[in-house]
Structures are given as structure tokens and as C-alpha cells.
């Protein structure tokens, strides 16, 4: 008890610093994967991608990030075991942040495909086992999270497959694909706006102080969808039929330009989804530390999370993106040369939807893996020229390595803090 009172400010400052470090890592590395498809399909430039990412990552973190933060903060470990020694939770959370941040940094330097979500979950589980015993972990919660790493790419994959097939049937198989694209693309834009705003309104906004019933949310989401659909129509009207090619009736390059408009919206949705899910990885432990210190040691108290915590997390992501992430976006974006807007759209929208849905239910999932699942889904619909399946192996491998690595680092830091503060 006295330790918390004595070092309370130090803990909060440390937590903020480490949380920011972690958020920086997320912004520097993970965002690039989220924006890669959009840049790779040449629908948006790298500069536009950064502007979109900065705005929508922040909005996603702030508006819809609350639920996942809750899971990271309280869902994984049994806080009631810590009533006697609340400082243990503080050490643990600090250690987790530092461990996950460091691991992300190492992995980025080495170019390993690790997931920020894996790092933080592994770190929290690690310190809990070492510091508090195996029983302190909510194993069924961890199981649900682990299961979601399999199901989320699966869901995104199925969704992407269906989405791309629908594009095939509605647009590409149409005798006049250009006219069909003009007709149906606004519908897809509506879908983007509707899904994102629906999940945000239903699950996310309570901590901002906005309580809406389901009906009201539905109405608002529909209205929002219509508004951005109008906006999309405005953009779309500027696209004209291009030079007809020799075998002119199927003018796919103009069709792709219409999809380019759609891609702008899905890129926003993706950034929003990513912000809502991944900012929690940095902010969750930070919020836990703050709540312990503020309530002077009462663990598991339901003190409201200060609003500036999510802002700090969102800000960290933005700083990471601006200082370093643009380089990664450039690498990822220029690497994906085989991606056209129609394929990129199907992959990005389905990944984004899966991620926002997961954020709504509070599940921390890996954005990268979801996107990979979505890309495979489009590939199965015969939409990709070539996919390198060996990469899947490396992703699974990174999944296996990241958990124990995060755990080990976190245990190390945990005992370091314990030694420093007693």
C-alpha cells in the first residue's frame, strides 16, 4: 500500500512513457500492414495513406478502442488475487508494456512478422504466471483470444471470398462492367460506412458518454452510410470511361479506377479498425496502472478510464507512423505490385469489418493475420495472380515465437521492477 502511495507519480509517468513507446511501435510497424493493400493497389499515394492513417487511427482508438482496452486491462488476469499486493499489478503491467514494446522493436529491426497483440497478451500472461502463479490467469479468456487468432483470419477470408465473388458476379460478369461498377460501387461504399459506424455506435461510444439504443444506432449508422455514399458518388462522377482498348467492351482499367474511389473509403475503415483494436494493446496496461494508483491501491475498482489515456495511445500511434511508419508503408506498398483496387478492396474491407467486429466484442485480434486471411480469401476466389504460401508458415512461426518471447521479456522486467521498488 505504501509503495503505491510513495511512488504513485513515478508509476504513472513510467506507464505513460512505456505505453507511448508501445504505441509508437504499433504505429511504426503494424499500421503499415493495414495501409499496405491500399497503397499497393495504387488507389492512394503514400502521402494520402499517412494522412488517412493519422486521422482514422486516432478516431478509431478514441471512439471504438474502449472495449478491447477493457479486455487487456481486466480480462486476462484475475485481479482479485492482488488485493494484498496491488503494486504487483503495477509492476506487471509496466513490465508487459516494456516487454511488448521491446519485442516489437527487436522484431522490426529483424524484419520478423510479429503481431502487437500477440506480444502484449504473451507479456501479460508471462508476468502473471511468474509473479502470481498459474491460477491467476483467466485461462478461458486467454483461450478465447488464442482461438480468435485462428477464427479471425478465417472469418475475414470467408468474407473476402464472398465479397470478391459478389464483385465478380455483379460487375465483372456484366456485359458493361463500367456501368455496372458505377451502379454497384456506391452500395459497397455504403456498406463500409454502415459497418464501421454501426459497430462504433453500438459498442464503442459509451465511454465518450454517448448512450444510444440499438434502434437509434441503426438509424444513425444508416444515415452515416448514406452520407458517405453521397460523398463517394461525387468522387465517382469525376471518373469517365477511358480510352477503349482493342477488345473494348470489357474496359477493366476504367472499372478499376472506380474501385480506386472505393479503396479510399476502405482504407479509412481499415485505419479506423486498426486504431480501435491495436491501440488497446498499448493503452490497456497503462489504464490498469492508472486505475490502481488513482484508487490508491484498490485493485479491480471500476474507476472510469481517463479520456486522455486513449488520446495518448492514439497520439503514440500517430507519432510512430509519422516518424518511422511511412518508410514501412513505402516498403510494403511498393512490394505489392500485383494488387488491383478491386482485389485490394475486397481484402481490406473484409479485414476491416472483422477487426471492428472483434473490437466491438472486446477481442484483441491480430490485424496482420486478419488481413492475410482476407487476402487468401480473395486468392481462393481466383482474384490474385500469385500468393506465396510459404509466408503463411513464417506467420504461424512468428505466432509461436512471439508469445513465449513476450512472456520471457515480461518476466525479466517484472523482477527488475520488483527489485527496484520492493
Amino acid at each position: 500500500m505504501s509503495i503505491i502511495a510513495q511512488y504513485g507519480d513515478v508509476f504513472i509517468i513510467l506507464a505513460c512513457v512505456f505505453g507511448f513507446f508501445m504505441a509508437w511501435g504499433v504505429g511504426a510497424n503494424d499500421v503499415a500492414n493495414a495501409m499496405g493493400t491500399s497503397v499497393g493497389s495504387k488507389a492512394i499515394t503514400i502521402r494520402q495513406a499517412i494522412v488517412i492513417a493519422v486521422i482514422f487511427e486516432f478516431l478509431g482508438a478514441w471512439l471504438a478502442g474502449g472495449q478491447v482496452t477493457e479486455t487487456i486491462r481486466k480480462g486476462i488476469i484475475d485481479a482479485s488475487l492482488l488485493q494484498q499486493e496491488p503494486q504487483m499489478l503495477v509492476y506487471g503491467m509496466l513490465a508487459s508494456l516494456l516487454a511488448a514494446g521491446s519485442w516489437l522493436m527487436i522484431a522490426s529491426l529483424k524484419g520478423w512478422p510479429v503481431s502487437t497483440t500477440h506480444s502484449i497478451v504473451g507479456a501479460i500472461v508471462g508476468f502473471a504466471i511468474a509473479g502470481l502463479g498459474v491460477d491467476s490467469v483467466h485461462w478461458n479468456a486467454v483461450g478465447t483470444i488464442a482461438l480468435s487468432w485462428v477464427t479471425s483470419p478465417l472469418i475475414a477470408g470467408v468474407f473476402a471470398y464472398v465479397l470478391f465473388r459478389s464483385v465478380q458476379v455483379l460487375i465483372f460478369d456484366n456485359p458493361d462492367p463500367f456501368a455496372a461498377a458505377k451502379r454497384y460501387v456506391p452500395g459497397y461504399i455504403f456498406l463500409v460506412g454502415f459497418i464501421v459506424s454501426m459497430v462504433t455506435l453500438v459498442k464503442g461510444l459509451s465511454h465518450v458518454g454517448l448512450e444510444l439504443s440499438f434502434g437509434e444506432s441503426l438509424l444513425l449508422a444508416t444515415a452515416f452510410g448514406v452520407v458517405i455514399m453521397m460523398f463517394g458518388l461525387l468522387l465517382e462522377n469525376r471518373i469517365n470511361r477511358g480510352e477503349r482498348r482493342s477488345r473494348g467492351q470489357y474496359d477493366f482499367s476504367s472499372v478499376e479506377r472506380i474501385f480506386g474511389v472505393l479503396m479510399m473509403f476502405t482504407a479509412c475503415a481499415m485505419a479506423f479498425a486498426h486504431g480501435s483494436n491495436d491501440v488497446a494493446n498499448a493503452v490497456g496496461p497503462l489504464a490498469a496502472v492508472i486505475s490502481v494508483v488513482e484508487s490508491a491501491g484498490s485493485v479491480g475498482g471500476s474507476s472510469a478510464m481517463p479520456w486522455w489515456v486513449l488520446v495518448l495511445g492514439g497520439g503514440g500511434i500517430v507519432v510512430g507512423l509519422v516518424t518511422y511508419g511511412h518508410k514501412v508503408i513505402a516498403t510494403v506498398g511498393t512490394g505489392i505490385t500485383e494488387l488491383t483496387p478491386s482485389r485490394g478492396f475486397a481484402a481490406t474491407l473484409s479485414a476491416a469489418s472483422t477487426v471492428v467486429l472483434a473490437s466491438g466484442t472486446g477481442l484483441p485480434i491480430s490485424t496482420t493475420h486478419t488481413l492475410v486471411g482476407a487476402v487468401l480469401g480473395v486468392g481462393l476466389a481466383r482474384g490474385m495472380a500469385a500468393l506465396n504460401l510459404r509466408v503463411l508458415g513464417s506467420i504461424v512461426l512468428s505466432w509461436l515465437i512471439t508469445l513465449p518471447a513476450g512472456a520471457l521479456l515480461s518476466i525479466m522486467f517484472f523482477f527488475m521492477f520488483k527489485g527496484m521498488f520492493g
Partner: protein
Amino acid sequence: MVSTNPFSALFGRSPFQPLLAHIVKTSECAGQLLPFFDAALSGDWEAARGYREAITQLEHEADELKTQLRLNLPNTMFLPVSRSDLLELISVQDKIANKARDITGIMLGRNMNIPDLLAEPMRDYLRTAVATVDQARKALEELEDLLESGFGRNVSDVMQTLIRELHELEHQADDQQIAIRRQLFQLEAELPPVDVIFLYKIIEWIGELSDRAERVGSRLQILTAR
């Protein structure tokens, strides 16, 4: 500092680009046959040698592309088309370039004289054969485009049209071949027998050029039929 991003690494190199590059080389290679033939007709064997070298060079480059494609088609790649169909297609394409080189080889090696009566029909015949190869190239260019749509229903329509045109060109070449053979048959008695044998050979090979181009079309049909 990020050497391999899992995400960009997931996208393998499309095999359709090298396939297209290969047929472009092949059709360039076949295209050189026309000036070669004109040089041979006018008896300018110096110029003919130059064209022959260009053809050999292009054939060599096409070979290189074929090898590259074969080597870069690992088993871990997930493709929207069958791997064996792709390999089959590239080897059919490759045979076109080989045949073009063989034709120049024999004509140049024997300093072959084409009888004046046959010169014009044979030039037309060769032009048709080269056009068939060009048509095969167009079909592949179209495939590249169609890939974007994930091979929808339109693919079969487009392919059908292209392959029909290809077939018509090949048919035209066949007709020309028959006419030329008939003409040659009438001249046979006046020409040295060995020359006649090789003239028949050249006529046959030019026909094979368009045959193989047509086979590219049918391989494409198989490729997109799944």
C-alpha cells in the same frame, strides 16, 4: 531496416508477367522473319545473316525468360490457374521461337534460292504465319487484363473471339500452304531435287509456326476453362 514484411511477401510474383514478356519476345522473333525472307529473296545474304543473328538473339532471350519462369514457379505458390497448364503454355510458346530460328538456319545455311514464281505467295504465306503469332500475343495480353476480374464469365467470351480469329488465321495459312505446295509440285521437274526437298521443308516449317501459335490459343483456353 524492415527486410521482409510478411504482408508484401505474401504476394508472390505473378507468373503472367513473364509469360507475356515471353510471347512478346517470341512474336518479335517471328517478326524478324519477314525482313530476313526479303533479304534472302534478293540474294543479299549479308543482310540475311544480320537478321538471322537478331532472331537467334531474341530466341535466346526468350529461352532465358522461359527458364526464369520455370525456376520461379515454386510449389509454395498459390495460383489461380493450374501450374502444369502454365508450364505447358510456356513450352508451346517457346517452340514458336525455336521454329523461327530453325527456318532461318536452313535458309541461310544453304543460301536457299526461292523460285521467282513462288516468291510472292511464300511471302504472303509467311506474313500470315507471323500474324498468327501476333494474334497469340494479343490473346495473352488480354489474359493479363482478364486476370483482374478473377476470370469471370466474360473471359470465355473474349477468349472465344480471340481464339476464333487465331483459328481463322491458321486456316488461312493452311490454304496458302496447299496452294504453294501445288505450285511447287508443278515446278519440281525444273529444279534441283535437293533444293526441292528443302523447299518443302521450309514450307512445312512456316506452317508449323502458325500451328504452334494456334496451340498457344488452345492452351490459353484450357488455362481459363477451370
